[in-house]
């Protein structure tokens, strides 16, 4: 058996696949930086470990350069490895979002790690590995590539969630994230094997050509359902959201910011790749499923957020509910508003990344002084830290979707996508979304009330000193949130050119 197999294959000589190094440059630069961080960690003495965060930060910015050169090079799409890895405008845009979000997370981590006495070398190594996985996810157009990128970004994240290893809460966060994450990938893999079994190929385009509405076999339907369930865990959609609040609360705060923004965005990017390339004609199966998940995710996330007293936990539920809004346009993908939906999701991901990272930067800055994660510890923030108070209000208002800020543009896009689909289904989702936007004011407003109207707890009005890295993160996020809202043309112009 083996000999015949070998004989038949040896006839055709092996030819190495053509590799477009320019298209792979962001990944290659990142891989180089990862090795540099790992080696530098070996040879640096303990007092000089801060250099590592600088290498990581500049490395992420260096990886951004080839993204810009690729964007202006004018090629519509560069496809490699038989269509398994595609670099197009959409993937460049999401790669840019991942790299900038990663840079902000490095800025957030700097003082947190130095003051908390954690293992810096390994931390930045794992963080960069996870970002590399996300960057790869942007280009994955094959079941195997998607799987490898997903694990590449998840496995370091499991370790980062359990990073404070002497704290039981962090252990618990890591364990829950790990067990549910691996369970979800097993479910997703089984779905992938069924899709492969039905279509005989792992390339998403090939799968998309074979799956047609109305003529799908039960095996393919089951495959689609399992794959979507697997990613629903990753984006913490209800009813697969249980791990999120506990993991977010127990993990180190910069990692919480990273998980709730970048890791979630990576899950959405994978869903977009699958739905737009592999299941464009499978709307009958995935649309009702994602629609129900979107409606229940935003509702449950909001209702649970209303009763939280811990800020990080409240933001965890808020991020679940925002995830529902990002899912909403996906529920009408494949119909006539497919293009609108893609634009809406990518816009939402960019705005959400800027806003949520900014809010976490404020949380880290304030808790440096108050040493508390309770909502009441924000009392009277404006009176002694006016800049932080104003920024926090801006980020909260953006999350709530108040007009001059980025969140408004994002929500507008999401609603436009579901309404232009012209189905009853889309109108129903829009109504659920509108009701939820109102409910969300409840808890965003209660945080704002603490900042502006409540007295300072214990009367301690010493000003908050923020280190320069945190200031930089606050400025980047604040600037991006405001710019995306005031000049929505920026992101809309970028997202008009994105096509898969």
């Amino acid at each position, binding site marked *: 058996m083996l000999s015949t197999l070998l004989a038949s294959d040896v006839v055709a000589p092996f030819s190495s696949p053509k590799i477009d190094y320019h298209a792979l440059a962001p990944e290659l630069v990142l891989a180089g930086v990862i090795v540099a961080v790992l080696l530098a960690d070996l040879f640096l003495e303990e007092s000089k470990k801060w250099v590592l965060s600088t290498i990581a930060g500049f490395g992420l910015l260096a990886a951004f350069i080839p993204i810009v050169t690729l964007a202006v090079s004018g090629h519509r799409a560069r496809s490699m490895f038989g269509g398994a890895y595609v670099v197009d405008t959409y993937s460049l845009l999401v790669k840019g979002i991942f790299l900038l979000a990663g840079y902000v997370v490095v800025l957030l981590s700097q003082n947190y790690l130095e003051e908390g006495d954690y293992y810096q070398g390994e931390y930045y190594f794992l963080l960069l590995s996870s970002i590399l996985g996300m960057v790869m996810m942007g280009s994955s157009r094959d079941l195997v590539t998607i*799987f490898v990128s997903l*694990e590449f970004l998840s*496995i370091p994240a499991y*370790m980062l969630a359990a990073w404070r290893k002497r704290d039981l809460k962090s252990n618990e966060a890591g*364990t829950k994230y790990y067990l549910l994450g691996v369970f979800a990938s097993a479910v997703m893999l*089984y779905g992938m*094997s069924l899709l*492969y*079994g039905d279509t005989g190929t792992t390339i998403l385009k090939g799968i998309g050509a074979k799956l047609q509405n109305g003529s799908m076999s039960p095996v393919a339907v089951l495959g689609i359902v399992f794959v979507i369930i697997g990613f629903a865990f990753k984006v913490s959609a209800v009813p697969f959201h249980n791990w999120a609040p506990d993991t977010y609360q*127990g993990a180190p705060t910069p990692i919480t910011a990273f998980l709730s923004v970048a890791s979630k965005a990576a899950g959405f990017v994978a869903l977009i790749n699958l739905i737009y390339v592999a299941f464009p004609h499978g709307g009958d199966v995935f649309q009702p499923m994602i629609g129900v998940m979107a409606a229940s995710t935003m509702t449950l996330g909001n209702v649970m957020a209303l009763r939280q007293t811990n800020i990080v936990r409240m933001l965890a539920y808020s991020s679940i509910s925002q995830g529902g809004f990002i899912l909403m346009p996906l529920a009408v993908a494949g119909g006539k508003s497919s293009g609108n939906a893609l634009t809406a999701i990518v816009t939402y991901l960019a705005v959400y990344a800027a806003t949520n990272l900014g809010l976490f930067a404020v949380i880290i800055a304030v808790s440096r002084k108050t040493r508390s994660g309770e909502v009441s510890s924000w009392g009277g923030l404006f009176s002694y830290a006016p800049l932080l108070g104003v920024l926090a209000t801006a980020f909260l208002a953006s999350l709530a979707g108040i007009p001059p800020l980025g969140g408004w543009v994002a929500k507008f896009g999401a609603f436009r996508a579901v309404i232009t689909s012209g189905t009853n289904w889309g109108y129903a989702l829009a109504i659920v979304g509108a009701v939820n936007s109102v409910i969300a004011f409840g808890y965003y407003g209660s945080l704002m009330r603490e900042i502006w109207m409540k007295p300072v707890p214990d009367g301690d009005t010493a000003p908050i000193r923020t280190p320069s890295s945190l200031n930089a993160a606050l400025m980047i996020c604040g600037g991006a949130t405001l710019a995306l809202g005031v000049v929505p043309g920026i992101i809309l112009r970028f997202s008009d050119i994105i096509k898969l």
Partner: protein
Amino acid sequence: MNAVMIAIIEPQPIWYLMLSALLFSIGAFGVLVRRNPLIMFMCIELMLNAVNLSFVAFSRIWGDIGGQSTVFFVLVVAAAEVVVGLGIIVSILRRKPGATADDISLMKG
């Protein structure tokens, strides 16, 4: 007589698919029911191996090498996951010997 019976019944690829579905269900059931983190983890490994079996069976049906090469990726990633998972589980069992999934619930709500 027995030898004749065995010769007649030739294993079909579909049998492997059924076995894989059965293994996957046992694994998934185990994750949901068992409370020891290590055993939950073993059940997940069972699910991953069910996936491998199903990839190989489908690969055989299609006469396509893609499914079999996917198995290698799954194997390698599963090995990496074991390393990380055991590290996390050992760190929690060191703090709380004999902890079950019900004990790991400091955070609620």
